């Protein structure tokens, strides 16, 4: 099988694979992580809110997202976002979103549900006494969250958040259904065009493995560093 393994096809297409494919994969991962953490943290605060309806809304959203296959959500958002956008801005025709932004929105919204659960655990890991102490000093809810609870929760959860990001990095390959050229998509296109399926898929696997494996090792190192001295 490896007798006529053609390394040349990999060399030739490296610029395309990385400049086109990997750039998109990393951009999408970064944007969805950043957006997902912000949105997920807000969802977590809603879920922990003492206002029942707020926590019910957030809970429903999170449970819905976590119960649907990502692929299905990608399709749904692709078809729905133009209409929702039109409804939001009051336009009578569906707005043009395009596959690129549709994928960014989808992954952000989807990951937010997972980041929400991580941040919720993080917030709950901070003792009630910290909130009492902050309130007793006269800090309001937002100041307490912003200066006391979330910095600690976030720090405690960094390893889990990064692990989730690694999973997200792999999941971005699903954007092939929107005909977007991510790293796997680029490799796949070359494979079909040049009839070099084995080479390209092996190479793609190696790249994913190297990146994800080194990232998870990094997370373990970080885990030991960020622990707050108590």
């Amino acid at each position: 099988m490896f007798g006529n393994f053609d390394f040349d096809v990999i060399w030739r297409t490296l610029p395309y694979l990385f400049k086109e494919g990997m750039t998109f994969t990393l951009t999408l991962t970064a944007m969805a992580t950043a957006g997902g953490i912000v949105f997920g943290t807000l969802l977590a605060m809603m879920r922990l809110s003492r206002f029942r309806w707020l926590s019910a809304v957030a809970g429903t959203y999170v449970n819905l997202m976590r119960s649907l296959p990502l692929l299905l959500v990608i399709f749904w958002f692709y078809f729905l976002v133009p209409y929702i956008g039109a409804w939001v801005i009051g336009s009578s025709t569906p707005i043009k979103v395009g596959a690129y932004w549709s994928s960014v929105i989808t992954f952000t919204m989807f990951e937010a549900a997972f980041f929400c659960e991580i941040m919720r655990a993080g917030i709950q890991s901070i003792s009630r006494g910290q909130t009492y102490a902050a309130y007793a000093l006269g800090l309001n809810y937002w100041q307490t969250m912003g200066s006391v609870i979330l910095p600690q929760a976030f720090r405690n959860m960094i390893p889990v958040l990064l692990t989730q990001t690694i999973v997200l990095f792999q999941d971005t390959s699903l954007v092939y259904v929107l005909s977007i050229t991510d790293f796997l998509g680029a490799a796949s296109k070359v494979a079909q065009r040049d009839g070099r399926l084995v080479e390209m898929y092996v190479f793609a696997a190696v790249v994913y493995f190297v990146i994800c494996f080194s990232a998870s090792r990094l997370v373990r190192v970080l885990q030991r560093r960020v622990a707050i001295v108590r």
Partner: protein
Amino acid sequence: MIEIKHVNKWYGSFQVLADCTTSIAAGEVVVVCGPSGSGKSTLIKTVNALEPFQEGEITVNGVSVGDPATDLPRLRSKVGMVFQHFELFPHLSVLDNLTLAQVKVLGRSKDEAVVRAVKLLDRVGLRSQQDKFPGQLSGGQQQRVAIARALSMDPVAMLFDEPTSALDPEMVNEVLDVMVDLAREGMTMMVVTHEMGFARKVAHRVVFMDGGRIIEDTGKDEFFDPASQRSERARLFLSKILQY
């Protein structure tokens, strides 16, 4: 300064506070004691609305704590509180622990806040520790920082919720010394504690609680004088904790 009138509180059907009434005048030091589960920690937390209550009224400096219209952060910023487990913010340095609320709540400039913080750290003997993190300090040092943090808001009254209960015995005195100094300077203080030595030394009054009720509310001398009339429950409690 602090008026507590007919306060009732339930957790579900369990009554934790039953018709509690007492008051603390400006400059007065009141020690609250009683067996565990008697509601003393709950009572002290109702004073700055960390614990809500269903019936009765509490006013601090004339402001009603239970009134939904009350600006609670504003009220709390005027009442310092010290907790059993210190509750310093572990991700902030000692100095930042003292300046955070000064800047965010009182709107002081960072420089102003630092000057005030350093002065208070000096007072509790911890100026040299200002750049350390809470986790690097001993329990007694942490509690002294916590007292300094509460004082940094220039409170009109201080609440202490078992401030020495989580400390190793050899660290209790360094914290009590700071509290005695505060009391002698005329700070209004409500102190939940089992340190009867502290009560004898600086308290003006002692409130004894059991089963969510205030059973005794008397001057210090009457409370500790075996000859004066006291409830059987308080006598039993005292004989137990003063045994050793």
